[in-house]
């Protein structure tokens, strides 16, 4: 019987293939040497429904990179950001943090993850002892809880509890003026949504004891259809609605709410509307009470306006809350590195604690990094939306004295202090 040529590879080529495969796999693990540049690792959510968080952070950091390199970099060495996308997955965030430090040789970290990722990164930072600034995580526990706080990790993002106090004071006043006693809440059903809503309500009730929460709705994050939630809300007939929905979810909610004429039946308050979201949501109803995530006109200073315009000029879109936070992180790093004259985690930690920087984003032109590794003094304001520039008007600045007073009380309640 003649032997037909069998399909498939010969033994030799099979071996060759396996060898090539092994080499390809091994290649990334052989560390690459690089001399002078300081690599700074930045990881965030660069895809998915909340991609705006990561992309606007990255935009800001690119501007900072150019600015800092133009003035000689850090310690005379140019800086270079290495960006990674964790897609919002905590175990990927942990892996990326380790990879950025261990393989790519990053000497500093800018963690632009959202809350869930930031806790994962925190553990890696605790293990590795590298300097890290969290720029987007708003969950207070990251720094307030002494069990979770890490020696070399700091946060420059706004804090949930600060916003809750400031927002509640404003909304209580607003509700008292307009006689809005019946409220409803609609927030995404995950830790941020639940905890922050609870925080707001806790303080709200303190400032306006006669508020009545007639109903609450908890759609899932990323839920495509809000119909049954909207009808539940309209039936309960609240006078006002507090919602923590954001980005794509908020847009869908607005569109679906418009179909039910929701916004003509109740006033809406939300702390979460960023510029690009305001621009992207079609048919946005006016008169939504909102916090100023980033606003060029608040603080109303030339420095702030200049920063906002520069960002717009470079990226052709307005900065978000995440943009200014990342910019602030680099300002802190810049000053701390100069002071400590080193990139070492412990040295930077010592320098950063208690540090005050001059910055356009401070309520009074400065922001301070507190002993518990989180910032205070940044501009928080509330106003109402309008369908065109600057999108939020009648902005009232928050009272930091009150914020800190109630924050301390809250920390005692949570047994953090």
């Amino acid at each position, binding site marked *: 019987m003649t032997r037909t040529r*069998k*399909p*498939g*590879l*010969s*033994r030799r080529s*099979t071996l060759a293939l*396996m060898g090539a495969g092994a080499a*390809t*796999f091994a*290649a*990334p*693990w*052989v*560390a690459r040497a690089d001399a002078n540049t300081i690599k700074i690792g930045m990881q965030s959510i*660069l*895809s998915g429904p909340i991609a705006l968080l990561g992309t606007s952070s990255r935009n800001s950091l690119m501007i900072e990179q150019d600015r800092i390199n133009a003035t000689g970099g850090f310690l005379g060495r140019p800086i270079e950001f290495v*960006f*990674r*996308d964790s897609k919002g*997955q*905590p*175990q990927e965030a*942990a*892996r*990326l943090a*380790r*990879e950025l430090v*261990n*393989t*790519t040789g990053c000497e500093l970290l800018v963690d632009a993850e959202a*809350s*869930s990722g930031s*806790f*994962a990164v*925190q*553990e*890696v930072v*605790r*293990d590795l002892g590298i300097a890290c600034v969290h720029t987007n995580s708003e*969950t207070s*526990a990251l720094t307030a*809880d002494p*069990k*979770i706080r890490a020696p070399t990790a700091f946060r420059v993002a706004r804090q949930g509890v600060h916003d809750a106090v400031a927002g509640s004071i404003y909304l209580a006043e607003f509700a008292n003026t307009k006689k809005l006693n019946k409220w409803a809440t609609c927030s995404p*059903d*995950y*830790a941020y949504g*639940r905890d922050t809503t609870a925080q707001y309500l806790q303080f709200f009730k303190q400032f306006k004891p006669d508020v009545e929460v007639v109903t609450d709705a908890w759609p899932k994050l990323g839920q495509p259809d809000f119909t049954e939630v909207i009808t539940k809300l309209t039936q309960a007939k609240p006078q006002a609605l507090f919602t923590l929905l954001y980005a794509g979810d908020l847009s869908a909610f607005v569109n679906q709410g418009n179909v039910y004429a929701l916004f003509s039946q109740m006033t809406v308050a939300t702390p979460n509307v960023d510029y690009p979201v305001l621009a992207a949501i079609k048919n946005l109803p006016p008169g939504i009470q909102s916090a100023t995530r980033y606003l060029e006109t608040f603080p109303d200073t030339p420095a702030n306006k200049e920063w906002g315009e520069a960002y717009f000029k470079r990226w052709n879109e307005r900065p978000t809350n995440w943009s200014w936070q990342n910019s602030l992180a680099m300002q802190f790093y810049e000053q701390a590195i100069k002071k400590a004259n080193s990139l070492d985690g412990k040295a930077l930690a010592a320098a950063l604690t208690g540090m005050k920087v001059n910055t356009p984003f401070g309520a009074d032109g400065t922001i301070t990094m507190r002993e518990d590794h989180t910032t205070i003094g940044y501009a928080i304001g509330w106003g109402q939306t309008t369908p065109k520039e600057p999108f939020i008007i009648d902005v009232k600045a928050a009272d930091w004295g009150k914020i800190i007073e109630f924050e301390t009380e809250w920390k005692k309640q949570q047994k953090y202090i």
Partner: protein
Amino acid sequence: MREMAVAAIALIVVLAIPLLHRSPAFEDFIIRLSAMALFATSLNLLVGNTGMVSFGHGMFYGLGAYAFALTMQMTDLSLPVAAALAALITTFAALCVGAICVRLSTDYFAFITLAVQMLFYSVIISWQSLTGGDQGLRGGIPRREIFGFELASQLHMYQFCAIVAVLGLLALRHISTSPFGQTLRMIRDNENRASFLGVVLWRARLWAFTIAGAFAGLGGVLAALFVSGAYPELADWPNSGQAIFAVMLGGINSFLGPVLGAMILLALNDVVTRFTEYQGLVLGIVILAFALGLRRGVLDFLKLAWLGYSR
């Protein structure tokens, strides 16, 4: 015996590498591979060996991770005890879930395991007070000492995970080549014949499901060690998908296929994230190349190619 020799050699090689060249990235890779190898190989006990396609295997991986992390955070039990406890809890859960699911035929089995996993995931997310909800368990796992391994050190963690993985795989191999394993394959090939021969189908399937769940839980323990915590993503549907892909890519008919598949997926992930943010595009093309080009897992393909010239 031969398996023990192979395992010993593999272990010696893996443990020797850091002595020659320290590469934190490689060590991280092996740590993650250990977890995933156990996960994927345990799944193949169901898929490749018994013909039971489970879409929900991730729930045991996640359960192992959470049980372990919670035990470490809430009690002072030592690491091996906590790990054993986690594996035990997962085994028990697999037994319960299996009891409900194994009587269903293939397609429906896949769907119901998926439904149970989704329910489990939704419970993790809702039970915020215990599990931390969608943020996972925060605060880290206290890095303790075990048998002289200081797990705070990456090298020791690497060694520990490699040893656990090799031992676990050895155990799975033993089960797979045992008469019980052969019974499973008989069920996969022709369940009627198997039942005519006196095999109680549902009991064998339940055993397989339980054992698979137990080893997936062990993989979860290693995963929890790596991230120093536990996250709901470990128990989510897409993670079950990862195990399925590892099995398919590596070879459903080879014992080490899933390990190879896991290696490929993890390496691709690591390498591609470094060069482009469009990992999905690259991964998708690679998967299509495997699925359409090779039409079988790599190890299966290599075995056939090798054997093609052995006559």
